[in-house]
């Protein structure tokens, strides 16, 4: 057991635990996360003065149980993270592999599209889209998915270019293999490790971005218990009751940290260089 395995193990445990929480939210949440009780507003967590065991992490400004909202919030973060990465991963990988393999004009076009995407300010455009179309989980996922593919594309492109020039690709072509075979069997498996590492990074980024959008009021719509939204709603009370923003913030931090640890572990385990 060295330090690397310990930290990777920690990452796996964090992500695994939160995944379990998200999946079993309906059973383990002590209260209905949407149930308001104006008589029980802003109860502090159990260990603070005025806290009660009934609401372990206290209640929010509408009297909703904070722990239950936190538990359901894990669902939203993980759902958005996963769906965004699937969408953006498919777009980016397809673009990058095609550009990297065919080269020439095709690659020029792919590079141009990547540059354009990088030039477009991410948060600003995401906010505008959500503002115009209206906020919902689907809109957030689609917006982020359609915007966050560029790192997949860049990594897929450069790694494909490296693999494309290796002799086993030439050998496969000489063996009469079709282009789809070469792309899917010879190239994709050999760049996959890099893409998996990118996926963890992008998932962490997507989760942070959703929280930021929700914090600015243009992400997941209330009353859904997004962690970012919880911080935004608690912002007005933070000077007197800092825990209303500390609790969801720590949850967010721990999840993203766990995913990053996992990614780092994968990077070591799969032997991917840190260059990208």
């Amino acid at each position: 057991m060295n330090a690397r395995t310990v930290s990777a193990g920690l990452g796996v445990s964090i992500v695994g635990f939160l995944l379990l929480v998200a999946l079993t939210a309906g059973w383990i949440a002590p209260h209905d996360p949407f149930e308001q009780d104006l008589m029980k507003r802003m109860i502090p967590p159990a260990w603070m003065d005025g806290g009660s065991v009934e609401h372990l992490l206290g209640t929010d400004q509408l009297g909703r149980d904070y722990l239950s909202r936190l538990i359901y919030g894990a669902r939203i973060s993980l759902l958005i993270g996963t769906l965004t990465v699937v969408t953006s991963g498919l777009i980016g990988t397809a673009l990058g592999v095609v550009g990297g393999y065919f080269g020439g004009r095709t690659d020029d076009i792919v590079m141009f599209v990547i540059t354009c995407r990088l030039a477009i300010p991410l948060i600003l455009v995401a906010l505008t889209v959500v503002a115009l179309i209206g906020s919902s989980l689907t809109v957030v996922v689609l917006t982020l998915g359609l915007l966050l593919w560029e790192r997949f594309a860049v990594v897929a492109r450069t790694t494909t270019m490296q693999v494309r020039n290796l002799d086993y690709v030439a050998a496969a072509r000489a063996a009469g293999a079709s282009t789809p075979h070469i792309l899917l069997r010879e190239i994709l498996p050999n760049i996959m490790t890099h893409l998996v590492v990118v996926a963890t990074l992008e998932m962490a980024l997507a989760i942070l971005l959703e929280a930021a959008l929700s914090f600015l009021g243009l992400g997941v719509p209330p009353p859904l218990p997004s962690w970012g939204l919880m911080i935004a709603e608690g912002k007005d009370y933070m000077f007197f009751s800092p825990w209303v923003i500390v609790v969801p913030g720590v949850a967010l931090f721990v999840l993203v940290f766990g995913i990053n640890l996992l990614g780092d572990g994968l990077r070591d385990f799969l032997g991917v260089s840190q260059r990208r």
Partner: protein
Amino acid sequence: MIEVRDVYRHFGGRTGLFSADRVVRAVDGISFSLAKGGVLGIVGESGCGKSTLGRLILGLLPTTSGDIRVEGQSLADLDRRERARLIQPIFQDPYSSLNPRQRIRDIVGLPLAAQGAMPAAKQRAEVMDMLARVGLSAEMAERYPAQLSGGQRQRVAIARALVLRPRIVVCDEPTSALDVSVQAQILNLLADLRRELGLTYIFISHNLAVVEHVATEVAVMYLGRFVEQAASDDLFREPRHPYTRALLASVLTAEPGIAIPDVGLGDIYPDPANIPSGCRFHPRCPIAADRCRIESPIRPPKNGRIAECLFASDPVRIQS
């Protein structure tokens, strides 16, 4: 068996908005033919275009102009499956020529699978037969390339190249990445297989000693052209191009007591994007005269020999 006519391959020269016109003439007019069972050794230094020529013959690169025919069929008219049945490659580096994510049986079976319509059991039998022929045991089939040594990997590459029983095998520096003790094993194996399966080899190498050992015919390539081509014995007995002589002189055999030769080529480096006028070898040539700068030395082959040197028929001058 194989006939190559006036093949050219130029790179670059795409006149983009601002990009300069820099045409690399990698293969600059090459013709040869090779009979069944022959071994054509192509010798040359890095950047002379020998690997590009190999890729053209394999159909991995399209020619700029010219025609390559195998058994009377033009390569350009063949689809990828037909081509694969005729010509197969063996590459230099056995570490990059095998897909690290596939098992040996899948790597060797790929040419069969790409042909389609072969029952799995038959494919497996063919693969196992081929592995046995190249001297690999049956349990190797389930392994991944990382579990094999360099020599074993090159045997796998040979098995993959031969599993379709092609007519021609293009060996591009097949032993250059290997240690000498392993190199000899692979050269012996290639020689055995050629005899057993009636193969024709195009054997690309920078190592004149190796080429001399395996080839029936030798072509010396310099800046995209065969500057000398002859039957192996003739070429080594009586080289007619000063470049061939320099190459021969550079071979350092393990014979003590002989001095290191002065090859007399100067420190000018050949650049395929900037090919000299007249004789393309003249800036480095120890016997160059003024006319070499202007006059093209290209002549039709005489008695099956090519020697693109204005003094080719002047043995005294060449030997000097």
